[in-house]
Every structure is written in C-alpha cells, then in structure tokens.
C-alpha cells in the first residue's frame, strides 16, 4: 500500500518518560497507519500506552514525557517536529479528540454551547452568530433533546451521556479528518454506551472521518473497528484486520484477551484471566515483554526481543510480535 493513500502514518514512534530512576520506554517503536474513513481499534490493559499514543498524535505530550524518535505523519505533515502554530491549527479542526471522562472534560463554568462556539471560532473566520447556529446544529445532530436548553446549560446540569454527546458535538463541529476516541464510553453505563457508539459510527459515516478508537473492552473494539492493534507494555504486539484478530488471534496476549471475554453460552465456571500483570516500566524483561506472563514462553523469548512481522505470506497484513505465534 502506498503511503500517499494513508491519512495518518506513525513510524517507529518512541515516547520516553524521564524520571530519577532513568529513562523509561512508554511507547516503543509504534508503527501504525490509517486510511481516510477507517476505524482503527487500539486495545490493551490499563497502562499499556494507549492513551499516551492518543496524546502523542494530538501533540499533547508534555514534560517529563518526550517523543524521542520516529514520525507521526498526518496528510504529509510530520507532527513530531511541526511548529506550535501548525499543531494548534490542526488540533480541533483536522484532528480532534474525545476523552474518557465526560464528567471532567468540559469546563465547569462555561455553558456547553459556548464551549462548542469557542472551538468553531478558534478555527474559522465566521461571525459569532453563524458559529452559534452551527453549534446548535451540532448539538441537534448528536441527538440531544431540547438543544436550546442544553446550549445554555453548564456541564453540571447534564448527565454523563449528555456531556459525552456535547464532547462529540464539539469534536466533530469542524468536520475533522481524524477523530481520536480515548475510551469514550468507559465512564458510561452500558445502555448509554451503546447509544454513544452508535452515534460515533453514524457521524463517522456522514463525515467520512477516520477514527482511532481506544478501549480496553474487546467487545466494544469488535463492534467499532475495521482494523485492530493490540498493545502491550508500550508496544504493538498484534495488528490485523478485525476478522483475523478475532477469529485467529496469533499473539498469546491477544489470545488471552479473547479468552477473557465472558461467554454467554456454555457452562463457564469461572472467568478466564491472564495471570500476572503488566510489567513495570522500570522493570521490563530482557526479552519479549510478555514473556513473564506467557504460557508458551521459550528460552529465546526470555533473551531476545521479537519484531512485529507478517505471519502469513498468503494473506499479508496480519502482523504479530512473537517468536512462536499461534497459527
């Protein structure tokens, strides 16, 4: 696939955390790409670097974290060394983001309408009146009842689901080409979650926006994504089409995540879980980062680091970082 058709290309991205205990690899050689209109799901446990990746794309990485290598190329512009002004112009208009916590992600003392208007006015030379009209249209399009009233409300008067809808309206008000959703439904109850997911998919289709969808929930990822990247301890360990990853997962960690989804059929006695926990960044294993929890771990896994490689020559595009992938 030529890079021209890609909207976003992340190449060998390294993010390091600088601490007194040394430099820790928060993100390690991330390689991902995204075509216009595509949804890339990113899944992994808490602390695996999913949200860090989102912040890196948004250019919101701040000391003591630092991008130490690699590129994030969005429409031919490398965001890693782009000027502050360029980033500021892209943020909110071409690339926008929805956060995990709708309860705290809106300014508590500004009306919801004003917060959307502000985003529009920051990027487009339109009159205030026109911006208000457009903000109102956006509020209507995210399915909020009584939009006039909500426009004038402050966030504390709205429920979590309503606030997340406001966030979505804000993020999409400038018709971005790329939308990053960082666990947008984790803080919401399941029925509201379904509505929000439906809404994101619907608006994505209308605007042909590409989406990076981050979640720790395999179920949500399988509903939303075209392609899926599984992350573990700051690395992508498996990357493929949704079908491949859910029918024939190859990395032991991805298999474990699959098995951990509770099933409705059969007589499940207990919930499956991957033993152990994500290694601490200052105490990473020498070889494969998953070796400490892997059932199939060999001597080689403990000493050498596997690369992310294609495992099936007949059907390229299923990349796995494992010496002994399940095929």
């Amino acid at each position, binding site marked *: 696939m030529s890079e021209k058709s890609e909207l976003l290309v992340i190449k060998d991205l390294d993010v390091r955390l600088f601490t007194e205990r040394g430099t820790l690899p928060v993100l390690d050689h991330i390689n991902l790409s995204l075509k216009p209109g595509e949804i890339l799901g990113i899944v992994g446990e808490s602390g695996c670097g999913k949200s860090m990746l989102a912040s890196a794309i*948004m250019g*919101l990485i701040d000391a003591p974290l630092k991008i130490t290598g690699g590129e994030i190329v969005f429409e031919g512009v490398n965001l890693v060394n782009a000027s502050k002004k360029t980033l*500021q*112009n*892209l*943020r*909110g*208009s071409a690339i*926008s*983001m929805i*956060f995990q*916590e709708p*309860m*705290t*992600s*809106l*300014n*508590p*003392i*500004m*009306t919801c309408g004003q917060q959307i208007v*502000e*985003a529009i006015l*920051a*990027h487009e030379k339109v009159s205030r009146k026109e911006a208000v009209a457009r903000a109102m249209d956006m509020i209507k399009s995210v399915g909020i009842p009584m939009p006039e009233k909500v426009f004038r409300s*402050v966030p*504390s*008067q709205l429920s979590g689901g309503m606030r997340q809808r406001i*966030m979505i309206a*804000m993020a999409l008000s400038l018709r971005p080409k790329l939308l990053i959703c960082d666990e947008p439904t984790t803080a919401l109850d399941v029925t509201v979650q379904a509505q929000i997911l439906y809404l994101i998919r619907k608006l994505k289709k209308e605007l042909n926006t590409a989406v990076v969808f981050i979640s720790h929930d395999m179920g949500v990822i399988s509903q939303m994504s075209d392609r899926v990247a599984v992350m573990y301890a700051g690395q992508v360990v498996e990357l493929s089409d949704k079908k491949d990853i859910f029918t024939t997962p190859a990395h032991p960690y991805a298999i474990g995540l699959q098995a951990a989804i509770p099933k409705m059929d059969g007589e499940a006695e207990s919930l499956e879980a991957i033993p152990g926990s994500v290694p601490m960044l200052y105490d990473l294993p020498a070889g494969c980062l998953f070796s400490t929890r892997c059932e199939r771990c060999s001597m080689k896994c403990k000493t050498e680091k596997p690369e992310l490689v294609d495992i099936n020559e007949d059907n390229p595009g299923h990349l796995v970082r494992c010496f002994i992938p399940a095929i």
Partner: protein
Amino acid sequence: MFRYIIKRTLLALGIIFSISLITFLILNVLPGDPVAAMLGDFADANKIKEVRHNLGLDVPLWQQYFQWISNLLKGDFGNSYFQKKSVLFLILQAFQYTSFLAVLAYVIALIVGLSMGIIAAVNHGSLIDRSLMTLSVLGISAPSFWVAILLQIYIGLNFKIFPVSGVQTPIGYVLPAIALGTRYAASIARVTRASMMEVMGQDFIRTAYAKGLGSFRIVMVHILRNALIPIITIIGADIGSLLTGSMITENVFNIPGIGKLLIDAIGKRDIPLVQGGVIYVATVCVIVYFVVDILYAVVNPNIRLGASVE
C-alpha cells in the same frame, strides 16, 4: 438565591448586634475612667460627678447599652468626648482618606499580584517562577512600616516627586498605597499561582488544548476564570481589612484615616468613638463578605443555579 440572600442578611444583622454588645461590655469593664482622663488627675469630685451625669454614665450599664443601641438604630452614634463632634461625622471624614488609600493600594496590588501569579503559573518550575515566588515571600514578610520607610527614604527623598508625609495632594497617596499594597500583591500572587496550577492539571484544560485554542485564551478564559474562586475569597478578606484602616501606614504617612482615628480614640478612652468605630469595622466586614458571596455566584454558575458541584 433569594432565600439565600435573606438568610445572609439576617445573619449579618445578628453578627453586628452581637459585636455591639461585646464591644460595649468590654469597653466598660476595661480599667481607666474616661471622665478622669478628660478632666485630668486633679479634678474635683463634684465636677467628675457632673460630667458623668452629663455623659449619661451614672445610670446602670444595661440602661446605658439600651440608650446607645436605640440611638444607633436612629443613626445617632453619639458624640466624641474629646473632639466635640459627632462620631458619625468623624468616621465618615476619616473614611474618605482610608477608602481612597485602600482603593489605590488594592488596584496596585491586584495588577501586580495577578500578573505575577499568572506569569509564575504559566512558567511554573522555571527561573522566572522561582524568582517571582521568592519576591512574594519577601513581600509578605516585609512589615509595611519598613516598606513605608524605605519608600520614604529611597523614593520620596531622592526623587522629590512624591511627598513623604500627608495627603494634601492626590500624589501623596502614591507611596502609602505602594507600602500598603505590597503585602497584598504578594499574597494575591501566591494564591493566583497555586489556584491556577490546580486548574491547569484538570481534564477540561486538556480539552481546551485539544480544541486548538491558543495558549493566551486558555490561560485567561479557561484557567484564570476557574482559578478565580479562591482568589475572590482573599480579595474579600483583604478589602475588608483595608477599609477598616491601616493603622501603621496611616501613622507613618500621617494620613487622618480610620486607623489613626481609632488608635487615637483608644488611647484617650473616647468610648463613643471607639464603639462607633468598631460597629463601622464590623459592618464593613459583613458587607464585604456578603458581596464576595454574591460574586462567587457570578463567577461560578454552578452556585448561581444551585446545581451540585462535584
């Protein structure tokens, strides 16, 4: 909101009433007889008796208090024992000087303090931040009479633009206002910095960046407005204490304000003037805190709307 205002008003009246009672009692149990002070050590007993009668000091205490408080309600604060003028007139006259000085000092303090706080918060951890915060510790610690004297010597005497004493011309207020404002500027700077730093770490600031807003707008609209609530609290307390007179600065610069008036009155046991002064101070404080509470609601719609704040 309406009920809240009524409740606050009643509470305020209760506070002023209690203060009047306490002041009255304390001044009457203090040693030192005002009449003796008026007439001198060698006054004759009949004369003392006569003066006590004229001043209404020979009736029981509760009657004196009742007389005083009922006059007070009619707006009559009584007359000063020594200056032979009405207490209300003396207080209002002194208030003109004090309030002008207070406003000027606080405008300076707000401009300097807020700018210092904002600059320090935006550059937190940097050399600028650390220098500004060191400066603010100095500002808080330096006694105002010391600052006042330094200003008199180094600016007043050297440049001969600002008079070192008296306020015959408005320009005479400049040095006292700086001396008085220094401490307030320093504390505003510290509170502003701390409050802004707290807001900066919150999720909605990240949202503001993600929207692509400019740093200036984020700092002034999103961070500062949310950070204002604790700042308004200290502004309220500061203005309350400024309006009730700054005894030291007023004395050093020889300004006939409330502070100087009260100090002189206490020294001479001029009881009506002291009582009136304390009632004035209490009223000013109560009113200022009342206004501050209303301002909270203006800044934070969550309070105005009675919504829960998490």
